[in-house]
């Protein structure tokens, strides 16, 4: 081994060590400062930051005049839909039936359509003003596809969608993805605030915080993955009951 070969690494090593330690020391200092500063900043800024984060989930679009109102969700939606009908009785209220869950299939609760018609009737909306778009949907994407077909069948319709306030950004995003730009421009979103909270105070109540988290996660999922591609699998209570009875029978015999 030559002299230059043997001395070069020994000459470089302290320099590398010094640089490494200096970087680690700086990183540690930055981490300590951040660890102290972030909670303090968050505590000072939360009255300003949290309403803004809540507002990111909300879409509330001015829509001018509209011919149809879709009841997709939201607090007081029946009251508001009935009020919009009374404002202009030529407006039609539109429903999209979700795929009936186990409670509906077993007759334990009425179907979505029956509930809506009953509530709207109780608020003075005649049944002929309520229109059901034929078909059952299992998620917001399927509903948007159904709506795309309906919009193309109603070329002059301008549609106002009433929905949960913290789901409104997601609703807009799904509609934009499924409808073309021309059709999407004929659909307007109104996010209805819950009577217990809205984007300005959601963190003060358990249900507000829960809805904010769910709204954020749903929006994040939709941005990252879009529509779920898996077939929804249904669990069978009858099979479960039979399995339990077999298990108990085997244990006792």
């Amino acid at each position: 081994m030559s002299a230059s070969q043997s001395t070069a690494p020994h000459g470089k090593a302290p320099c590398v060590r010094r640089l490494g330690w200096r970087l680690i020391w700086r990183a540690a200092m930055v981490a300590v400062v951040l660890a102290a500063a972030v909670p303090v900043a968050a505590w000072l800024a939360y009255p300003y930051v949290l309403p803004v984060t809540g507002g990111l989930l909300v879409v509330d679009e001015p829509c001018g005049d509209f011919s149809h109102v879709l009841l997709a969700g939201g607090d007081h939606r029946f009251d508001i839909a009935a009020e919009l009908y009374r404002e202009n009785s030529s407006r039609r209220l539109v429903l999209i039936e979700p795929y009936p869950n186990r409670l509906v299939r077993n007759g334990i609760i009425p179907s979505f359509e029956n509930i809506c018609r009953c509530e709207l009737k109780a608020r003075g909306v005649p049944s002929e003003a309520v229109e059901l778009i034929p078909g059952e949907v299992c998620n917001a994407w399927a509903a948007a596809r159904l709506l795309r077909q309906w919009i193309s069948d109603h070329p002059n319709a301008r549609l106002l969608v009433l929905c949960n306030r913290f789901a409104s950004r997601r609703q807009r995003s799904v509609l934009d993805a499924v409808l073309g730009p021309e059709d999407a421009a004929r659909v307007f979103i109104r996010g209805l605030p819950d009577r217990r909270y809205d984007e300005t105070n959601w963190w003060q109540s358990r249900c507000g915080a829960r809805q904010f988290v769910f709204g954020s996660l749903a929006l994040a999922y939709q941005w990252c993955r879009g529509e779920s591609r898996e077939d929804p699998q249904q669990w069978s209570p009858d099979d479960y009951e039979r399995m339990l009875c077999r298990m108990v029978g085997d244990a006792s015999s």
Partner: protein
Amino acid sequence: MSRRRWCFLVLAVAAAVLVGVYMSRGYLLPPMAYWLDVGGPPRRADYVMVLPGDANVRPFVAAALVKAGLAGRVLVPKTESAPEVDDGIYPSSDELIGRVLVHRGVPPEKILILSGSSNSTCGDARALADFLESSPGARVLVVTNHYHTRRARWIFARVLKDRAGQVSFVSAPTDGFRPDNWWRVEEGFLAVISEYLKLARFIVGI
């Protein structure tokens, strides 16, 4: 090594870790959901308690346990009502659970509504603690969705203290997703991720 090389090395390692995690998500993500599930096989008990929420599944499981003779009566906590319940649009949680139980063949006299007004798993645990004051030796099966059993067990252990041993948990399945595909289905993603957030909140004690 220069600072630029250090930065490059750190970024390369971080990128490799991210790519590795993404590539092996099929192996990494199912254990996340399996870890949340601490439900055991159903044992004989005096009561089965249905935790409010997911009435599409939980009361059906409770009814099956009663019909199989694994539990004698059903405990249903009373919950704080939601706006749509106040408006009379939907039935309250305890009424809905009662309807499912009766529909599945559980006699109404076997359904016991616990007093109180719960709005959380902690409230449900307190309702059970009150009940166990009057029935100190009772053994109870608690039915909830599989991803909720770990947090429920922690909360019940904290609230029930010495009586926690009288309670065991039965995992109800979920419609639409399983622990091995939860991240591919929106409902599964929401359920599992929000459950971890709630666990973190429980641990921090907010």
